[in-house]
């Protein structure tokens, strides 16, 4: 048998299929179809957790996603562990391992419960009041203390081994919630031919109909009708049924986030399956059929295990065949609890009494309860309860017409069921930015004005009668399909034989006659907020519900106050004597229920987190033992260490080889843009600071691009391939930025220019061959190109063939040596690279990486955008004033350069720094000051932008931006560091071959 409290028959569980699971190390047996909550209740277990602040023993309160108490950790090992799962939503499977949270050493004996003794000191705003001073205590005492005490559950310490997938989907009508309203809406909408998604957070669709025992729909039992309706929907090709799928978030333009749980309920799931799937659904129309949540009544000591929602008890009895207790007392303000009492009694639970807050309850349900022999106490409240780990008695009081409460009787029980009526679930509607309106008669906020294309049906808009719900769902479903553009299929009306339970209820704290500062009536179970906390906040001057919420933390737990918000609001309204709608409502935010990080991350983890760009030479560099660095998304060879070499040794060797013989460098990552058209030169003139009109085909030029604000944005060499064709290169990281900027101007400012832009970054492999012997290496490999000094001077480009492959061969140098950049179609990159390496073998050709590239360019004082520039550097600041075409009337950024601040003499300017001790290498980013002994904060004159050991010069070199730097050349400044100041001499920012003699060969 699956527990002492399992009824011999009834419900939707399969008693023939026992399921073993463990909770806090103890083994239990449930049956197929159980949730963890129903299986524990079947075994008589109500105590499932300790509360957040006071570590009060807490039991299962609800049967759904609104559960505030029964949060458990699930997972047999640390990698698979998930904290804060609601026991009411966990489907048990063979071998499930679950544990309670927030208790030590055990659930039944918890040391943290000592907090209860300090309850007077832990009231609202406790953190704000207690941890005020001294400030030094924050880091060592307060913050660790709060961090240990705060937060529910524990985070798993190992990486998540599960997979999560994501899918985009579109539908005509998305129906959220598969209760009677949602099923009717899906039936009606899909009958028109519309493509319909129907999702529901539960494993089984049907909603409230799954626990409906008496009402008949179209002459069928609720269960039979539900089965028929779902079978009908499943048979339609235009319907997608999505059980175990929570619509957790509404994002603009009818874009909804749905989380489908795929394997959490399976023992030994197929490892090919993802654990969860994120559905990102764009729905033309949305039908919200999200139902309503039962509201607890708030009274002193209302948090003991064994106190639960009346409707939840009915669900456990009717749907799971579980008796949540032996003897129940019911405390209600509405008729639905009578229906629950009748169902529980017929399942075998004794009903000791029904305490009804109302003075004169009446109607069919009350009559039936009385006829069944139940004691109905009118105008009666609960004034307190007893029982340590489980309720054992209830104190009742008589509510007088004057509002006073007089003690009346004490009743022994092991179950207290409460109902304060139902709160429509308007979370998603509110997330969609729809406006809520307060309905006085229903005591509920209901959907009002829509912003998005959606409609609400059934209980979530305050319609509770089953027949009305079904017909509202039908109307909503066909209305939504019609709004999409589908016609036909008039909605049929459903006939229901059953009695409505009306819509009575209560909001706030029920009268109890006690001193609120001595009694504890819990409003928010999950965050341990009491009536007294809320009243204290109001006494201390908080009026806005948003402030009361943050000060007391009511409604701020993982359940977002699903069961508590309305009662908190009601209490504020009662206390301030202000109508409830004027108190306002806190904002609903996604996600509706806690959602895993995994499903948001999806496949974007590890190697798939970001795309990786590799050049055609990448694998060759890997085989050579290159060490790589990331430059934007590219993998670039950083250096090529030989056995036993560290970076320093490798770079010294690579630099020497390139300066003395020949080096080879993979420059493929440079951005490349082809600019073509009659007005290509005109566009170049407008975009770049330089003048391009006079550049002849076959020549190349170094160009600089500014933002419209006048600051350097990018640079690179540009070859003119033909009068109407330019081959632009950009920085590795700036390629898309430059193309976007040029497209922007071409499309929006100068649409009349006849010019076309094409990204060719990935079309060309770029092999840079640099050094005095580079010409000797390449000469035997090229056809149709004369590499001689006379025929192909520095800064020229030729087209021809190399190794039989078409090439654009640039004679250009970022090293200060004779050099060539061989552009070949990317597919030939590796072959040509290897051919050059083979040809260069006799000359000692040496592959070098980005570190050597940087050292060589710094020796020549060549800037790197993003290193010597930071978005506040003008061309003049970084020594590129010469690139500005003086005769040009306009170019992007020119006007900004004429602003007074851009021409000020004390701007930071590029200089070279030589440390007085040549062995000292400065740190990039270090500050430059005049007097290192001045008081802190020092006056900072500038900072080091590049700094290297130069093997060529056998000393350190650095570049820096220094205020008024050019006028300080020849003087000494200081770079203060933790180990003491470093004296530096300011020099021209060029350290090697200042006349460029090595290029003119």
């Amino acid at each position, binding site marked *: 048998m699956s527990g002492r409290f399992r009824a011999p028959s009834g419900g939707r569980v399969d008693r023939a299929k026992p399921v073993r699971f463990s909770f806090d190390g103890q083994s239990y047996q449930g049956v197929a179809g159980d949730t963890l909550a129903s299986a524990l209740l079947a075994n008589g277990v109500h105590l499932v957790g300790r509360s957040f602040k006071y570590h009060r023993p807490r039991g299962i309160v609800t049967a759904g996603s609104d559960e505030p108490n029964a949060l458990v950790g699930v997972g047999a090992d640390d990698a698979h562990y998930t904290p804060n799962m609601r026991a009411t939503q966990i489907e048990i499977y063979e071998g499930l391992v679950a544990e309670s949270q927030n208790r030590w050493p055990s659930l039944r004996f918890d040391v943290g419960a000592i907090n209860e003794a300090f309850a007077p000191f832990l009231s609202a705003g406790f953190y704000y009041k207690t941890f005020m001073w001294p400030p030094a205590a924050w880091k060592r005492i307060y913050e660790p203390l709060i961090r240990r005490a705060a937060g529910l559950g524990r985070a798993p310490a190992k990486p998540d081994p599960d997979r999560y997938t994501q899918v985009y989907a579109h539908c005509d009508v998305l129906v959220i919630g598969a209760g009677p309203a949602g099923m009717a809406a899906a039936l009606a909408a899909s009958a028109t031919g519309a493509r319909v998604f129907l999702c529901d957070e539960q494993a089984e669709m049907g909603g409230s109909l799954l626990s409906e025992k008496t009402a008949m729909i179209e002459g069928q039992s609720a269960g039979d009708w539900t089965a028929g309706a779902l079978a009908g929907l499943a048979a339609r090709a235009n319907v997608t049924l999505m059980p175990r799928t929570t619509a957790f978030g509404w*994002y603009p333009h009818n874009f909804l986030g749905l989380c489908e749980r795929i394997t959490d309920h399976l023992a030994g799931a197929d490892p090919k399956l993802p654990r969860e799937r994120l559905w990102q659904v764009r729905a033309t129309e949305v039908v919200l059929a999200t139902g309503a949540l039962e509201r607890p009544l708030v009274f002193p000591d209302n948090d003991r295990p064994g106190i639960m929602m009346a409707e939840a008890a009915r669900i456990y009895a009717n749907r799971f065949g579980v008796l949540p207790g032996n003897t129940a007392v019911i405390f209600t303000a509405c008729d639905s609890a009578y229906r629950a009492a009748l169902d529980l009694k017929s399942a075998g639970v004794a009903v000791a009494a029904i305490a009804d807050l109302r003075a004169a309850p009446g109607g069919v349900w009350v009559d039936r309860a009385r006829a069944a022999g139940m004691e109905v106490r009118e105008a009666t409240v609960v004034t307190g309860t007893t029982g340590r780990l489980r309720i054992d008695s209830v104190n009742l009081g008589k509510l007088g017409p004057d509002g006073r409460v007089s003690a009346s009787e004490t009743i022994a029980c092991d179950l207290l069921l409460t109902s304060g009526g139902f709160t429509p679930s308007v979370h998603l509607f509110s997330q969609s930015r729809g406006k809520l309106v307060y309905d006085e008669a229903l005591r509920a906020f209901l959907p009002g004005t829509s912003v998005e294309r959606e409609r609400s049906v059934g209980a979530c808009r305050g319609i509770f009668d089953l027949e009305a719900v079904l017909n509202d769902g039908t109307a909503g479903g066909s209305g939504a399909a019609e709004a999409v553009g589908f016609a036909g299929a008039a909605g049929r009306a459903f006939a229901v034989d059953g009695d409505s339970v009306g819509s009575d209820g209560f909001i706030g704290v029920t009268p109890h006659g006690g001193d609120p500062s001595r009694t504890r009536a819990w409003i928010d179970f999950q965050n341990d907020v009491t009536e007294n906390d809320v009243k204290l906040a109001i006494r201390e001057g908080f009026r806005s519900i948003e402030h009361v919420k943050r000060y007391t933390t009511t409604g701020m737990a993982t359940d977002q106050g699903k069961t508590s918000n309305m009662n908190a609001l009601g209490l504020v309204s009662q206390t301030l004597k202000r109508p409830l709608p004027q108190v306002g409502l806190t904002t609903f935010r996604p996600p509706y229920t806690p959602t895993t990080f995994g499903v948001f991350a999806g496949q974007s983890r590890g190697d798939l987190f970001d795309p990786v760009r590799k050049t055609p030479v990448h694998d060759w560099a890997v085989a050579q033992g290159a060490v790589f660095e990331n430059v934007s998304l590219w993998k670039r060879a950083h250096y090529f260490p030989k056995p036993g070499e560290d970076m320093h040794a490798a770079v010294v060797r690579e630099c020497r080889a390139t300066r003395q013989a020949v080096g080879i460098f993979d420059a493929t990552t440079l951005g490349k843009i082809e600019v073509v058209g009659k007005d290509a030169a005109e566009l170049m003139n407008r975009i770049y600071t330089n003048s391009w009109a006079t550049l002849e085909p076959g020549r190349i030029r170094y160009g600089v691009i500014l933002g419209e*604000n006048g600051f350097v944005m990018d640079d690179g060499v540009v070859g003119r391939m033909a009068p109407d064709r330019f081959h632009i290169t950009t920085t590795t990281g700036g390629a898309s930025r430059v193309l976007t900027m040029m497209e922007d101007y071409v*499309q*929006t*400012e100068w649409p009349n220019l006849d010019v076309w832009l094409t990204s060719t970054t990935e079309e060309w492999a770029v092999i840079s061959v640099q050094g005095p012997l580079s010409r000797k290496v390449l000469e035997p490999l090229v056809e149709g190109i004369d590499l001689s000094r006379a025929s192909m001077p520095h800064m020229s480009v030729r087209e021809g063939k190399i190794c039989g492959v078409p090439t654009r061969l640039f004679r250009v140098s970022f090293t200060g040596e004779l050099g060539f950049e061989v552009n070949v179609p990317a597919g030939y990159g590796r072959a040509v690279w290897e051919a050059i390496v083979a040809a260069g073998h006799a000359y000692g050709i040496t592959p070098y990486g980005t570190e050597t590239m940087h050292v060589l360019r710094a020796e020549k004082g060549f800037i790197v955008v993003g290193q010597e520039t930071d978005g506040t550097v003008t061309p003049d600041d970084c020594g590129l004033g010469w690139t500005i075409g003086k005769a040009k009337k306009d170019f992007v950024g020119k*006007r900004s350069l004429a*602003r*007074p601040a851009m021409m000020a003499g004390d701007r930071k300017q590029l200089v070279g720094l030589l440390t007085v001790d040549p062995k000292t290498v400065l740190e990039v980013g270090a500050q430059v000051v005049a007097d290192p002994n001045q008081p802190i904060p020092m006056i900072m004159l500038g900072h080091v932008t590049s700094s290297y050991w130069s093997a060529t010069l056998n000393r350190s070199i650095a570049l820096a931006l220094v205020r008024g730097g050019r006028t300080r050349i020849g003087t000494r400044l200081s770079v203060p560091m933790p180990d003491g100041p470093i004296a530096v001499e300011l020099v021209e920012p060029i350290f090697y071959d200042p006349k460029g003699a090595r290029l003119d060969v």
Partner: protein
Amino acid sequence: MLLIPCPHCGPRAELEFSYGGEAHIARPVDPASIDDDSWVTFLYERSNPRGVHAERWRHLHGCGRFFNVLRDTVSDTIAASYPAGQPRPALSPDGKGTKR
């Protein structure tokens, strides 16, 4: 995620687009003739309205075209989208324009 109507391709998800700031801020034809204050206004000052905002988007991962959108910054409702270079359309009195 917004559903943005590209005037050239039709409605597409926001992740295909890149945002381009406020629309209808034309670069002066002759910047040299503009005084410093006017130039700074052109460079940096934007209207940042609460309500309908004319803004530029580029269908980066689609047709690549820049175009303009009238979007309500409160509700995110897009009332119109139109090619770059066209004047800002007048909205119907209900503020909803002609396109949804």
